[in-house]
């Protein structure tokens, strides 16, 4: 009996010692939490599937490589169905979990981003809007918590004009360009920039809106046929893109004179359109393909270990998958930048991650280290420039894949930046916000 008691006591002591050792270790494990208000069902589910698949695969990849300097990444998805109300609901549900150590929030929706700009600022949670969202948030003095990273709708529109100008021996004078757009905040964002470009480059701009969801565009394309434009720039999303490409075919408008925004330039838009899409062009802030070393390594490492997020591995290397990876790369780099300043190996709080996003410096050399050369442009952010790049490439659909036509093209900064700075100043005045003094902060 005594012997049994002794054995039990020893066993209990060993177990207690083990537990005692384990508990502090568990407490010490640092984690950075990404809330992901994503969409995988609903009208734009196919697009969200690829984007968030790529995003999560990169987070898994980083974890498999040891985390962000030892800090493991965790995440939770919440289905928004690309619906603003559901997006806000997801945000409210997850924000308390994200409060301690948040990753940048990516909604992949201009509408949801608009709804979250003020909330995220109040909750001190950084909001990323890579390639979408509120253009005037480039001005970090007014929008410290919002980051329309890489490039904005207005800079993208300007870059497309630059591309067309180069195509026409440096002048668009006397040309006619139709701007066919989704009649929503997303579609209306670049109008200011296109009007400014039209005045500067003396081309005729005809604006034609398409009512949501854009699955019927007969009247719009009849008008385009009547206008006889030299080019059509299209700001579409989802079913609108394919309908536009097919209706252009029906009206006999050449597809190689149509240029879509980056939301109108994925395989989801061109593959279902079949032969009608051949020759169609679009802007993009990331390239497609698995020949980017990082994408190939994700496939080998993450999918090799059976931890891939997507069942359908044919999505790997598509435009939207690579965009999800690119968005995750910048988010992780922001946390790395924050750690470099505030302590390596520690989970970063909202303010620290915000600082990281505002002090990104992703050079060509850094992209090479990550294995992302050519995947996305170099990015350098600051207090007064939350965009950090403003560059896009132009690509063309050859009937089977996207072919890159140009190097990175930067929009006309001198023309476009004052536009959103004025808009940001107006916003600050309306809301009674005192803008930060970026120059003074830079000196500190």
């Amino acid at each position, binding site marked *: 009996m005594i012997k049994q008691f002794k054995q039990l006591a020893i066993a209990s002591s060993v177990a207690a010692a083990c537990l005692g050792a384990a508990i502090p270790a568990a407490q010490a494990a640092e984690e950075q939490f990404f809330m992901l208000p994503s969409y995988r069902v609903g009208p734009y589910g*196919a697009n969200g599937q690829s984007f968030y698949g790529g995003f999560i695969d990169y987070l898994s990849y980083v974890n498999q490589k040891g985390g962000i300097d030892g800090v493991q990444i965790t995440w939770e998805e919440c289905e928004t169905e690309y619906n603003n109300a559901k997006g806000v609901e997801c945000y409210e549900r997850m924000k308390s979990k994200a409060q301690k150590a948040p990753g940048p929030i990516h909604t992949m929706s201009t509408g949801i981003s608009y709804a979250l700009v003020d909330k995220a600022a109040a909750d001190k949670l950084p909001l990323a809007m890579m390639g979408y969202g509120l253009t005037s948030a480039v001005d970090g003095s007014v929008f410290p918590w919002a980051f329309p990273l890489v490039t904005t709708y207005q800079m993208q529109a300007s870059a497309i004009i630059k591309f067309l100008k180069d195509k026409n021996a440096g002048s668009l004078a006397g040309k006619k360009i139709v701007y066919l757009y989704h009649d929503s905040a997303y579609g209306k964002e670049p109008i200011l920039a296109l009007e400014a470009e039209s005045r500067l480059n003396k081309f005729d701009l005809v*604006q034609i809106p398409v009512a*949501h969801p854009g*699955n019927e565009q007969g009247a719009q394309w009849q008008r385009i046929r009547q206008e006889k434009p030299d080019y059509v720039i299209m700001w579409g999303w989802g079913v609108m893109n394919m*309908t536009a490409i*097919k209706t252009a075919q029906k009206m006999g408008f050449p597809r190689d004179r149509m240029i879509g925004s980056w939301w109108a330039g994925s395989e989801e838009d061109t593959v279902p359109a079949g032969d009608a899409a051949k020759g169609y062009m679009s802007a993009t802030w990331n390239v497609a393909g698995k020949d980017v070393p990082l994408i190939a390594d994700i496939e080998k490492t993450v999918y090799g270990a059976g931890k891939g997020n997507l069942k359908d591995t044919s999505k790997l290397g598509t435009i939207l998958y690579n965009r999800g990876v690119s968005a995750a790369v910048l988010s992780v780099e922001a946390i790395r930048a924050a750690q470099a300043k505030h302590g390596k190996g520690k989970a970063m709080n909202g303010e620290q991650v915000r600082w990281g996003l505002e002090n990104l410096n992703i050079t060509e050399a850094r992209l090479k280290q990550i294995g992302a050369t050519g995947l996305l442009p170099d990015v350098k952010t600051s207090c007064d420039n939350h965009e950090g790049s403003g560059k896009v490439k132009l690509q063309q659909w050859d009937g089977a894949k996207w072919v890159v036509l140009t190097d990175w093209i930067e929009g006309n900064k001198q023309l476009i930046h004052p536009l959103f700075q004025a808009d940001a100043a107006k916003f600050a005045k309306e809301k009674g916000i005192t803008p930060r003094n970026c120059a003074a902060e830079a000196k500190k």
Partner: protein
Amino acid sequence: MQFFFEVLIGGLLSGVMYSLVALGFVLIFKASGVFNFAQGAMVYFAALSVVGCMEKGAPLWLALILAFGIMTLLGIATEKFVLRKMVNQPPIALFMATIGLSFFIDGFAPLLWGNEVRPLDIGLVDEPIPWILDSYNIVVSKFDLVAAGLALALVALLALFFQYTRVGRALRAVADDHQAALSIGIPLQHIWALVWAVAGFVALVAGMLWGSRNGVQFALTFTALKALPVLILGGFTSVPGAIVGGLIIGASEKLAEIYIPPVLAGWFGGNFGGIEGWFPYVMALLFLLVRPEGLFGEKHIDRV
């Protein structure tokens, strides 16, 4: 003038596409008095089933048969699990049930077949007919003409079915009064299952044409939105009404989209394009005020 006719013809042909979706609504309403909110979802499910079967290796003809089988099963299941429990319930309860059904199909269809946007090639190219373009400089699409032909054939077939067959007459009796129809020995359950299967067939035809034009994707469910003003105009119980309503809505929304915004812009400044999203509804609303039962709808008279 040539441009006016091009817009008019384009609008009329688009209207036929709306009519195809409206037909499904009319069928179910005519036979059961239920406004089937799930018709748009059925169009999506039918088209998705065709491409799903084709991805599994079935040729188009077999995929069509299989998809029709799936839609028939859906019809039988709807009768058995939803409608049978709700015999003689107020129309609003049945309407609510179809809203539930619509959300169920929206969620179930992609679970079954995946939610990727997929092409559907039915061998029809959506290109202008060269000789019309050369002779009159008017764009008329081959695809639109075939779609119009199909819709008209379908209407003729359904009109004959309702008017001249025993089942058709039974369907009309059920629509008038569930209990009275039951009391004279009409098998309500079979009739309802049958009409849902026929509506599934109409959804399949609509799904094939819309899916071939815009790709098979979730947005096909939005086609229902295009059918609502058509129904208000044409009447909920009239098969020819669905066609006439579709033609009026299609032509008027296209003409409105082209000719009204410049006038409004001249008066108020700004851009008023994109009105075709709401214009048909305003038109239907105005029509509703004048003729609530629609152009061809049955006038409802109650004894006091």
